[in-house]
């Protein structure tokens, strides 16, 4: 059924022009339907949100340097960590890799000219950015202090009605997630190049496809939950409020039914990135391709049956707790398979420590620590002790920041030459990558010890004996900040002054490397035909 390879319209681009040469007018960006330009639009918005959220984090860490809690009042501290959590989860982590790298690369990696629905793609950027700014305004102006989870009945009875606006904003942004998910799924299903069967897809494509599925299946449940919160607040309807016959646990069930899978929206794409980098810089085909594909899908599906591990101590029945504990252990299996396969790929390879490889190896370390401590938390009895302590904070930062953000940085450095056609400063990039690895461990490792010793999360002051660990953690945050700021500088510099990279500086396989850098408007001068499996290294 392989069909005609070019349509007539393609002939207009007989001499391929690169996607940036279409001009730099505001119009050419804000009205573009080219998935590559849309990826940049996302990159700009997302970076803005990221540094905003990071500034809040630094303030939090500054406050915690001294036990007394003298920099901020308790209320401002609550508002600050709410702001930090809301921005980082909803506006950075969830869209980050899929909306930027995924948007840019997914069509290219399957040999397509664009996403299936380019206008929808642009629309989803508008929804994301405008919704994000709206939420941010509501959170700051209104001083929302519910944390990023909007737990009821606090969020619904709480005197401050800004929660309503904030929840509405997050609801709106959810649509952008759904639209992106639909686009990924349909594009992967219908637009693969001739010869590109499902088992020849690069793992990054598989990861984004699975992420699309999770987005589409989970986000609507979050949407209805937020609608119910809004109705409860605005109309006094009692769905969650026990005083009105409602059930607050119901909120937590609905909320975590989305938010646990959301963790996989964050981590799966990062796994996809690492699966591209490691084979390339160990000159080895990925070990156990089929196992990798199956574990991606297993992670995506199992993610839907473990939400109850967030509620071990909130009053669900003991039997539910045991069941959720069991399922949570199960999720560890596909993650372990992936980690072992990456290690096996490295083991047989000729490793070169390029910048993106340093990020990928950092990912392995951080994800392993985060994952193993996750197994602690999945154990019902241990979680009762560790719940709502800094152990949790450390665990999810190892996963979310150590996993998702490190994967994002690795991907950015791996594909930068493809995105821009230019190289960045290798020494500086190496410094930044190491700063990130050291900074992360220094910031969050002490928090495991703090949590184990009993320091609860979300407190703005603490007993003297925790001081050393807190100071170490704040020190780490400074190093980490360096690891995030440096790339902003040398990458911006490379946009203008970087050396030209040529189409394939890493000598990598994959369709995206077979076209010019930066790529032409419709990606390929001729639609490629695929004849072999991915990662044909050596």
């Amino acid at each position: 059924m392989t069909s005609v390879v070019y349509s007539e319209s393609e002939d207009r681009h007989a001499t391929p022009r690169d996607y940036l040469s279409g001009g730099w007018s505001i119009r050419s960006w804000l009205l573009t339907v080219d998935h590559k330009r849309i990826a940049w639009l996302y990159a700009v918005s997302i970076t803005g949100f990221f540094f905003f959220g990071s500034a809040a984090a630094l303030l939090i860490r500054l406050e915690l340097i001294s036990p007394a809690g003298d920099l901020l009042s308790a209320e401002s501290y609550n508002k600050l960590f709410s702001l930090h959590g809301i921005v980082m989860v909803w506006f950075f982590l969830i869209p980050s890799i899929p909306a930027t790298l995924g948007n840019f690369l997914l069509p290219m990696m399957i040999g397509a000219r664009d996403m299936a629905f380019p206008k929808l793609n642009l629309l989803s950027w508008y929804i994301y950015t405008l919704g994000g700014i709206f939420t941010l305004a509501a959170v700051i102006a209104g001083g929302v202090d519910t944390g990023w989870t909007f737990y009821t009945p606090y969020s619904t009875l709480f005197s401050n009605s800004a929660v309503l606006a904030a929840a509405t904003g997050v609801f709106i942004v959810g649509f952008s997630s759904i639209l992106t998910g639909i686009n990924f799924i349909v594009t992967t299903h219908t637009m693969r190049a001739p010869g590109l069967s499902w088992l020849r897809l690069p793992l990054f494509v598989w990861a984004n496809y699975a992420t699309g599925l999770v987005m589409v299946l989970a986000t609507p449940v979050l949407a209805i939950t937020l609608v119910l919160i809004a109705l409860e607040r605005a109309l006094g309807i009692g769905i969650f409020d026990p005083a009105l016959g409602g059930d607050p646990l119901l909120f937590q069930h609905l909320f975590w039914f989305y938010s646990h899978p959301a963790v996989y929206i964050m981590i799966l794409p990062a796994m996809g990135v690492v699966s591209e980098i490691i084979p390339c810089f160990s000159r080895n085909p990925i070990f156990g391709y089929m196992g990798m594909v199956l574990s991606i899908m297993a992670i995506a599906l199992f993610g839907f049956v473990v939400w109850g591990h967030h509620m071990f101590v909130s009053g669900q029945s003991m039997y539910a707790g045991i069941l959720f504990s069991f399922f949570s252990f199960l999720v560890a299996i596909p993650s372990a398979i992936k980690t072992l396969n990456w290690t096996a790929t490295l083991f047989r390879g000729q490793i070169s420590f390029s910048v993106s490889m340093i990020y990928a190896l950092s990912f392995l370390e951080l994800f392993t620590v985060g994952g193993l401590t996750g197994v602690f938390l999945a154990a019902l009895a241990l979680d009762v002790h560790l719940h709502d302590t800094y152990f949790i904070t450390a665990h999810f930062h190892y996963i979310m920041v150590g996993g998702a953000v490190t994967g994002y940085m690795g991907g950015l450095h791996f594909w930068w030459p493809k995105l821009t056609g230019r190289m960045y400063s290798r020494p500086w990039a190496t410094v930044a990558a190491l700063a990130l690895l050291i900074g992360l461990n220094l910031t969050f490792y002490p928090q495991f010890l703090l949590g184990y010793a009993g320091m609860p999360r979300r407190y703005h002051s603490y007993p003297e004996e925790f001081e050393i660990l807190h100071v170490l953690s704040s020190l780490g945050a400074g190093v980490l900040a360096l690891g995030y700021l440096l790339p902003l500088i040398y990458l911006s510099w490379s946009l203008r002054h970087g050396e030209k990279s040529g189409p394939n500086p890493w000598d990598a396989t994959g369709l995206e490397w077979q076209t010019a850098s930066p790529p032409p408007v419709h990606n390929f001068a001729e639609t490629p035909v695929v004849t072999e499996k991915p990662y044909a290294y050596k």
Partner: protein
Amino acid sequence: MPTSSGQAGARPEDETPPETQFDNMDQQRHAGLLGMWVFLLTELLLFGGLFAAFAILRLQYANVFAEAAQHLDLKLAAINTALLLSSGLTMMLAELAAGARLRKVAVYWLLATILLGLAFLAIKGFEWYSEFRHQLMPVLGLPFRYPGEQPAIAELFFNLYFIATGLHAVHMLVGIAILVVMLALVRRWRRPDRLDRQLHIAGLYWAFIDVVWIFIFTLFYLLRG
């Protein structure tokens, strides 16, 4: 009823070029349909969260919910179910007629579908109005006087009822708006092959609204024992 004007655009191969990102029309059609299916899946899950919430509370407060359900008007809801199912049929006939290039017939069936949808909404509105008159509408701070036991929990039932039927009614309005646009397009009758695709996608959405209603009808009205 096939009239001469019905054949106006009846050339089987009105080949229109696909949009630039697609190789051919087949691929484009496939993508459009799959997109709609996935979108409907998300819509189903949107209602799914609501239905799950209802199911959990319904198990928890079985007696009160069952009694509260008896205050809903089963007869009107049954009529509405019949109307909506018929509209599913007329929509399918409209699609078939357009596929056979019978323009006028397609217009009539579309019109019938829209009228059935409007009739549904009118009855629904009347139902809400009578619930409002019996003071069973707790939204917007209206007084709620429930004659049975445990009014607070019955109130929860009515809250969920108004949210579910309200959300469904919003979807009906969107569906009717889509059908009106389709009606205009069919009357203009340019590029029938494209109309075919659009009608098919609109029909899918309409069928979805039908399915959601069946769930609402079963969960809220029929579970009264």
